[in-house]
């Protein structure tokens, strides 16, 4: 089998650096390739770490003063005078003293058997020679007054002269302090496009951005489209209310408090999440519609890919072509085919949410058809053990259990066997 793997492209994938078509191919591949998914998860974790560890920071205010002092210490008027000519007497004297002191100290403490240059070679930096481009090389040495620490540590480099600058042609007030005046950090936000009517963000009519913490609300006549960072978009139907919970490279999260949203997401699994009052919908690379009624109950319909519904440690995998209900008071329903018969749907709803018990289950099994394996597989772990054999038989009649998946093992809910059978169900479902 000539399966193409993408392990070398995954950092670019995680950082959304690839063309859309390639992002799509890799997202689809990750759904089915455990090897690439493992590498992807490792790289994503590395990226999350880097985001935690690396923060841009302003230089301390004192730094500019040091630089100004360095500029002031040489009063000569030439802008780019030759370095040698740039040394004032005091600078020469100070540098010479430092050089003598540092050299003496170095000679005292250096390892006796090693010449200094031997020690130098312990740094096999890939940038060992002109680090990036010769004209850009900076040699931190004694060229800055106020940099004595560095100078002292560097006995082998004779102090270079400080760069010399012409005094400004226009007088500069002594109190000029360019305290870094960067704009405050922006609150992460998503672009919003009004599709109809006048959607609102907070108490105002929707602007172009929905920031973290803000609520977007549509009335009966308005609709909006929200760009989910750079991984897709979500259309907000009339009479809906959504809040942007968070957006960062490792997670983009909305809360759908009421109404309907339709999501189209092109991203690695588990990057886009929607909270609802009755369940959490976790995107596994897909398109879907999610509704929440005024009581907080939900309905999910997936058209492409998969969504995982989660609540209280339980999970339902909802593949394309299926629907699942959620209830605020009763949790997750069982996914079923969008083409299932009304009798099948009703019985399943009674079983999931209305204590339908054995009679409801019997109807579900009686009404099951070729498009029922996704439901039946989920029911294996939802029914009481006394009924599990019947569900096993119904599922086995549609999708044969793979080798090494035994009736006894499934009745005990052996995880490996259930996972193996799910793979077969998936294959059948998408065939």
């Amino acid at each position, binding site marked *: 089998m000539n399966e193409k793997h993408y392990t070398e492209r995954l950092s670019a994938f995680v950082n959304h650096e690839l063309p859309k078509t390639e992002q799509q191919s890799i997202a689809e591949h990750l759904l089915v390739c455990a090897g690439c998914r493992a590498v992807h998860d490792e790289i994503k974790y590395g990226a999350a*770490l880097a985001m935690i560890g*690396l923060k841009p*920071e302003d230089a301390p205010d004192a730094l500019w003063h040091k*630089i100004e002092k360095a500029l002031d210490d040489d009063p000569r008027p030439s802008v780019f005078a030759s370095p040698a000519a740039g040394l004032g007497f005091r600078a020469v004297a100070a540098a010479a003293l430092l050089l003598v002191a540092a050299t003496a100290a170095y000679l005292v403490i250096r390892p006796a058997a090693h010449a200094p240059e031997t020690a130098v070679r312990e740094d096999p930096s890939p*940038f060992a020679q002109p680090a990036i481009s010769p004209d850009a090389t900076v040699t931190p*040495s004694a060229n800055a007054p106020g940099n004595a620490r*560095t100078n002292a*540590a560097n006995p082998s480099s004779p102090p270079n002269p400080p760069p010399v600058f012409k005094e*400004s042609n226009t007088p500069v007030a002594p109190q000029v302090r360019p305290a870094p005046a960067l704009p405050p950090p922006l609150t992460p936000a998503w672009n919003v496009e009004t599709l109809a009517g006048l959607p609102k963000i907070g108490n105002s009519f929707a602007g172009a951005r929905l920031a973290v913490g803000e609520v977007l609300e549509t009335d009966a006549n308005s609709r909006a489209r929200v760009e989910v960072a750079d991984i897709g978009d979500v259309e907000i139907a009339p009479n809906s209310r959504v809040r942007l919970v968070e957006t960062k490279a490792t997670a983009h999260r909305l809360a759908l408090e009421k109404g309907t949203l339709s999501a189209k997401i092109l991203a690695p699994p588990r990057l886009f999440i929607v909270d609802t009052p009755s369940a959490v919908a976790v995107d596994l690379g897909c398109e879907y519609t999610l509704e929440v009624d005024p009581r907080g109950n939900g309905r999910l319909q997936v058209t492409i890919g998969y969504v995982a519904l989660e609540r209280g440690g339980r999970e339902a995998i909802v593949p394309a072509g299926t629907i699942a209900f959620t209830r605020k008071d009763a949790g997750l329903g069982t996914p079923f085919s969008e083409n299932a018969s009304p009798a099948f749907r009703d019985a399943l709803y009674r079983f999931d949410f209305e204590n339908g018990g054995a009679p409801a289950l019997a109807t579900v099994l009686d009404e099951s058809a070729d498009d029922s394996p996704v439901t039946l597989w989920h029911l294996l772990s939802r029914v009481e053990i006394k009924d599990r054999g019947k569900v096993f038989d119904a599922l086995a009649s549609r999708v044969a259990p793979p080798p090494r998946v035994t009736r006894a093992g499934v009745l005990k809910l052996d995880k490996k066997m259930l996972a193996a059978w799910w793979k077969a169900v998936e294959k059948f479902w998408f065939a």
Partner: protein
Amino acid sequence: MTEKEIERDLLADCRSGRREAFARLYERHQRRVFSVALNFFGGNRTLAEDVSQLVFLKIFEKIGSFRAEAELTTWIYRMTINACIDEQRRHRRFFSLENFFGVIRTKTAADEKLERHALSGEVRKAIAALKPKFRLPILLKYSEGLSYEEIARVLDCSIGTVSSRLNRGHKMLAGKLKHLKKEIK
């Protein structure tokens, strides 16, 4: 006025040696230079300040010879990275002298404060322990927010090389810090 026009005027002012132009240039780029140096040295503020000071003095000295076909920001990143690499080389070479003088490694109060954020500090140190060829793309990506193309320009290599080094760098980091996985989740 566009960004490019502002930059062009600023460069012209700097070339004429006007101090307030240097101040404006510093204001525009101090965060870049300091952040790269700070993250390169695993949060060592003393080293980051020293290197930043040297970089700006060098920038002011060389601004007259800066060729405008390159982007000023790219040029400044290159200056900073080269200064960091030179400084690291120097510190490795003369590590015993550093200890002898007892100044360079002295932690500032700010360093101590940083270290209280144990998780972030541990991650930062792990990044600083990577070889520069893996460390630099990571810090240009995640501290500076550059695209792969911009990183390739700064490091003077191909986008493929950036991608491959980031791939390996991420994996190395994940391997070194796998014990933090639960905390990150």
